[in-house]
């Protein structure tokens, strides 16, 4: 009984911690815009927490620079165990436009394991919310059904290809 209670509370209120590892801060302001009144992801119980210790989900933006690599790993280790990482923006997914720059190592997955990749430069706040729902879908199938149902109604173009 206790197990699905924690599972339920984890899905219902995933607290996020935002980490910018060296991008152009376009995605940071889009993550913030998702927290603002217009998109307001607090209705999913998502709160922006300052310290990684209180957070379940690490929202990473920006390509990994050489300087931030070990700090990102240290912050990832400080997070409590059921932890997930969302890479927001093409720089976080793969280093994007900064290929060949000597101080950029590439995407976030060069330092920490990533669960959901959200491409876009920067992804719109609703694309970020769609990524968060997709992550929640991995924990609780009802969210994936929600996405499937909305896809059938043609509300969202969830693209497989």
């Amino acid at each position, binding site marked *: 009984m206790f197990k699905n209670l924690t599972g339920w509370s984890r899905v219902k209120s995933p607290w996020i911690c935002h980490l910018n590892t060296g991008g152009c801060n376009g995605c940071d302001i889009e993550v913030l815009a998702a927290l603002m009144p217009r998109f307001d992801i607090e209705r999913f119980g998502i709160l922006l927490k300052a310290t990684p210790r209180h957070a379940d989900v690490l929202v990473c933006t920006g390509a990994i620079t*050489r*300087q931030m690599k070990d700090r990102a790993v240290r912050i990832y280790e400080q997070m409590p165990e059921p932890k997930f990482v969302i890479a927001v923006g093409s720089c976080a997914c793969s*280093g994007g436009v900064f290929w*060949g720059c*000597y101080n950029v190592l*590439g*995407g976030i997955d060069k330092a920490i394991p990533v669960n959901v990749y959200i491409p876009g430069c920067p992804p719109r706040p609703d694309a970020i919310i769609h990524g968060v729902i997709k992550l929640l879908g991995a924990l609780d199938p009802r969210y994936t059904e929600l996405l499937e149902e909305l896809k059938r109604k043609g509300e969202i173009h969830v693209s497989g290809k």
Partner: protein
Amino acid sequence: MSAESDIQDKLKEVFGEKISELKTIRERRVFVRIPLPLVKEVISYLKQNLGMTHITTITAIDVGEEIEVLYHFLCRGVALSLRTSVPKANPVIDTITPIIPGAILYEREIQDLLGLKVKGHPDPRRLVLPEGWPEGVYPLRKEYKVKVEES
């Protein structure tokens, strides 16, 4: 074109033939080449007489066996760029921070990215490159090649 020609005449009359390539490529853009030892003297002259206080930035370019240094100033609304070149063998220039304190950052940058030793700099610590960066490797030099690996 009054400000530009005014600056050019003043420079020509004081420094005469020591400065060269004095040209105005368009309004509010003046380029001039000055020999290395004269850098401090020209800048302090410009500061006292033409009321120049604002430095925009210092650019350093690796042109084969020399490093070209451009000081970009704002003098009476004109973007004045002083150009000198430093031999790559012993790349040393002296600091202009006592004359224009705002230049402290830009000297640190060329020191770090191009290996130009700045003599007399109040704080010559490492700049923007990460701690683990090997000594003596300067990324903005031509011989530094970035290996582009396909991800």
